């Protein structure tokens, strides 16, 4: 199994990966509070980007509503905690199935009735919007007033209840990102991975090659949604408050997909690199504008947008395929 996973990765690439992992493992020891917050955000987006990439990058199904799965995961775990005192790890056992089921429902409607391409994307937006409006009126989760998790002054890290120092969240997200990377590689090298790529490339030809397209598209949505919901659980316990207006908002869904797009859709390392670039860029812009004393509303967004536009125009396949060639690494051609 491990030999299979490492197959085709050059020693050089492994070394670089190990070095990066070491740096990330040591980071909280040196990083200040602010930098740690930024790193948490980066890993959060790297993990979700990886999950979203399974649907879009592997199976070719564009979801513009992944905030739905983040939100369902967050709300499920948070509500269980607030109402019944059930901890987040047990909550995860409910959150993942809830999100996966929602994914299965969206997928079933779309794939059963041959809703494809942009129409599928619109359907995914629609369901995230349903959730946003629905949760606004759901008393169980306190509606639009927001669901708050009790915050106590922490004296020690309580991993079981996810109460503690940001460094704990950092390590959990780092572990999740590494696990997601390994899992995605295993998927890509498996039978399912080949079928997904075939479907992404040409659904009709995939069908003619005997692939049950409906089944494998469903699998992609369910896995992607389930994985995404874990990030939602972490989100809930990290921020301690949930508002439907925020978690299900379409802007959240867009944020999720920018990383993999900038990093390289369909690549394994693209979502991770994209998260570093985007969050890094946003923070740099904020810092630079602050240093220059510029305080015009919206200027940050404009500057961020221009930088993004530049990256996407210059490297339409994403930064990772370009960088990979530059530093002499090869990921299996897909």
């Amino acid at each position: 199994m491990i030999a299979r996973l490492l197959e085709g990765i050059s020693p050089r690439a492994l070394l670089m990966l190990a070095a990066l992992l070491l740096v990330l493992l040591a980071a909280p020891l040196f990083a200040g509070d602010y930098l740690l917050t930024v790193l948490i955000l980066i890993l959060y987006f790297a993990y979700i980007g990886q999950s979203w990439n399974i649907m879009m990058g592997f199976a070719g199904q564009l979801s513009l509503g992944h905030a739905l799965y983040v939100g369902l995961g967050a709300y499920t775990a948070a509500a269980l905690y607030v109402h019944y005192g059930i901890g987040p790890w047990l909550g995860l056992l409910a959150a993942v199935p809830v999100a996966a089921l929602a994914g299965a429902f969206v997928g079933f409607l779309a794939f059963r009735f041959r809703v494809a391409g942009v129409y599928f994307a619109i359907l995914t937006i629609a369901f995230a919007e349903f959730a946003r409006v629905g949760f606004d009126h759901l008393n169980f989760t306190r509606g639009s007033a927001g669901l708050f998790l009790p915050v106590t002054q922490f004296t020690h890290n309580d991993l079981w209840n996810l109460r503690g120092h940001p460094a704990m969240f950092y390590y959990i997200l780092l572990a999740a990102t590494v696990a997601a990377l390994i899992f995605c590689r295993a998927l890509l090298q498996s039978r399912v991975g080949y079928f997904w790529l075939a479907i992404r490339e040409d659904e009709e030809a995939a069908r003619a090659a005997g692939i049950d397209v409906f089944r494998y598209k469903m699998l992609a949505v369910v896995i992607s949604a389930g994985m995404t919901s874990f990030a939602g659980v972490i989100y809930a316990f990290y921020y301690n408050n949930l508002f439907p207006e925020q978690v299900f908002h379409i802007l959240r869904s867009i944020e999720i997909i920018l990383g993999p797009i900038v990093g390289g859709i369909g690549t394994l390392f693209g979502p991770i690199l994209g998260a570093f670039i985007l969050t890094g860029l946003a923070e740099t812009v904020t810092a630079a504008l602050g240093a220059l004393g510029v305080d015009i509303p919206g200027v940050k967004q404009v500057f961020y947008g221009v930088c993004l536009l530049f990256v996407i125009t210059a490297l339409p396949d994403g930064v990772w395929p370009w960088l990979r060639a530059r530093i002499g690494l090869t990921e299996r051609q897909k």
Partner: protein
Amino acid sequence: MSALLSVNGVSKRFRGLVAVDRASFDVAEGGIFAVIGPNGAGKTTLFNMIAGMFPPDAGTISFASERIDGLPPDRVCRRGIGRTFQIVRPFPALSVEDNVIVGALLHRHDVGDARARAHEVLRRLDLYDKRGQRASSLTLPDRKRLEVARALATDPKLLLLDEVMAGLRPTETDRMVAILRGLNRDTGLTILLIEHVMRAVMALASRILVLHHGAAIAEGPPEQVIRDRAVIDSYLGVEAIGA
């Protein structure tokens, strides 16, 4: 020899236009069966019904003594019918090898086994040396052979070929003919092909069906069919007899 594929009174109309009109024929196991006819004769429509792209309006299609009409394409393929598309449809961003591995994974669960099978097929189709290239970078003749390779990798009992010679130069046509003949001879693979290139049809087919306006106007061994008056009038033309 028994019939592997049996088409009985199959019809299909599109908005009142009769594309295929009560076509019936049997493809013997181990044979190479060609369907010829002018453009618009209904060849591809007939083909698509066999492959499961859409069901016939009337009639039945049986494969290995089981009804397959109305089954979706993936299930038809899993029963043992591999197909190519008239306009080739490789998976463009995948390597040549991965294209064929996808086909080979249909009846294999281990990627290593599928890769071994893919290599075998690629060698047969003269694509082994190009296995690392992206499919989108291939020339048309190579892409046509890749299309056959992918279908072949699914281990079909019957291979449906939709104009695999179209657009090929004569030397390429001969190469494809040799490959198909070798497959038929060595593995007993049954082949049903739609073809315009008479040079290939005559070199390959053990039996020919001629469609005209959706209806079968002649069927038989090649020598007999090309001398058929109706076939000459509707399709081949008088000069062709000398060929």
